[in-house]
């Protein structure tokens, strides 16, 4: 039987030694809020602890809270063995959107983090291959940011500008 949300919260709190994590229950289950310096610690615990065993990373989402000057990174986890879910939310400053990578824990994070980097500009430290994935390698800006200007630019102009700046011989 999967643990209920409160049981799960107790279980995690019991295992955590001094890691500052706050919990609340949202629309899709238990949410854990953690600072980026403790993210890896928490994720390792969630993944390795047999009673928790969150071995399945469902999704990594990013939200640009431009009014707060923050980017929120949301991890949706699931445990194949026990059937319980948890959501981890990390807030990082927009100016310095850096976060340790979890691709060493869940391989699925590799491409999901690349996508987050590509579209939102979150830099994942320690990622094995942090390149753009959907957009061309020489794209400028990160389109899912709220302040991204998406005025249409003619290809010729864009190309000419690149040549002017000396990026294309």
């Amino acid at each position, binding site marked *: *039987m*999967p643990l209920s949300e409160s049981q799960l919260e107790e279980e995690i709190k019991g295992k955590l030694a001094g890691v500052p994590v706050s919990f609340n229950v*949202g*629309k*899709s289950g238990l949410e854990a809020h953690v600072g980026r310096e403790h993210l890896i610690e928490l994720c390792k615990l969630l*993944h390795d602890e*047999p009673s928790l*065993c969150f*071995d*399945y*990373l*469902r*999704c990594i*989402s*990013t*939200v*640009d809270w431009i009014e707060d000057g923050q980017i929120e990174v*949301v991890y*949706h986890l*699931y*445990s*194949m*063995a*026990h*059937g*319980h*879910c948890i*959501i981890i939310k990390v807030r990082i400053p927009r100016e310095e959107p850096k976060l340790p990578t979890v691709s*060493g*824990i*869940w*391989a*699925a994070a*590799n*491409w*999901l983090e690349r*996508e987050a980097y590509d*579209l939102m500009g979150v830099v994942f430290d320690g990622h*094995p291959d942090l390149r753009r*994935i*959907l*957009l*061309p390698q020489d794209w400028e800006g990160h*389109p*899912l940011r709220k302040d991204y200007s*998406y005025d249409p630019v003619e290809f010729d102009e864009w190309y000419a500008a690149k040549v002017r700046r000396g990026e294309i011989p």
Partner: protein
Amino acid sequence: MKRNSDSGIGSNYPWHKQRPVIEEPRPGEALRADRLIVNMGPQHPSTHGVLRMILTVDGEWVVAAEPDIGYLHRGFEKLAEMRDYDGTIFLSDRWDYLASMSNNIAMSLAIERLLDIQVPERAQWIRMLVAELQRIASHLVFIAAYGLDMGAMTPFFYCFRERERIVGFFEALCGARLTYHYVRVGGVAADLPDGFLEELEKFIPMLQSGFDEIDELLIYNPILIERTSGIGIIPPHLAVSYGLSGPMIRASGIPYDVRKCHPYLFYDAVDWDVITHEACDSWARVWVRSQEMRQSLRIVKQVVERLKEMPAGEVRVKLGRSIRPQKGDCYVAIESPRGELGIYIVSDGSGKPYRVKIRGPSFVNLSIAPRVLPGVKIADLVAILGSFDLVMGEVDR
């Protein structure tokens, strides 16, 4: 009627201790030729759309394979932020163009969860009906295309005959044949037309015999088994670590199905089985899909029974001109034909979604390609990549 709880798949989990290790690709044979870099795609008959594989080959052996995606990127996540909630549904038709109904359902469910509204029961049953028919249609296209990849032309036509009939039913529902926009926020666009269920009942045995034909023609064909078994093996621990879903993970022996693990609609009120296979290879993935179609048909039969008992009535909640959910976020996942289609949607209280994140199953499933492809032969590459059932519209979104 039994209602399963939100239960996991048991404590038998030998894979959870094994961390993914990025291994060096296996070296080729003792006789080595120079390594050659070959571009497969973006326009190649067997990449199904615009997928480019950058292959490093050593003779017949693949040393490294890197998918280059994004040729079909249309920025749906950004587009959704500029439309009101109702307007995002028709965008969803275009993610996975082989399973528009499933996309509609995922998007509608997510918005309804934000709004905290209850959809009329009849509408939910209709949603289940179209979702399962859509799954059958999508799997039929997969089997057709896979047969084509393997050089068998004829199964293609048999699959498309059946699919054509399903598409005909959808056309009767909503007038469209590919991008349906039938499932809306708060229900479905319209009730079933007169005589729909009767026609569908007549069609079910035809479909059943169609499945038998396809099984005989392709799935259990000795040449196909010879070609596809034992290649592209994804062991269970890798499948879990890479976040695979749908038939991909079930063919690795893990009974992860969103319909069972995170039930939505009335999937826990009907009788059906999760299909798994222990072989973990390409053939298992094909077989799982062929069996899943039969399970879907089983669900369709029960849903038709249910709908026939039910009087025609309300199929959509009246929601007013503009939808304004409260501040908040939610993640809703459904089992699309390709796997877990998740929508993470954030509302800031305005009439437009603040952020929509689409977790495309094909995108995540493709991410294992650089891991399983090194060490196979070029001829097997098509057989492996084909069994992933990629729809590039969803990979690139």
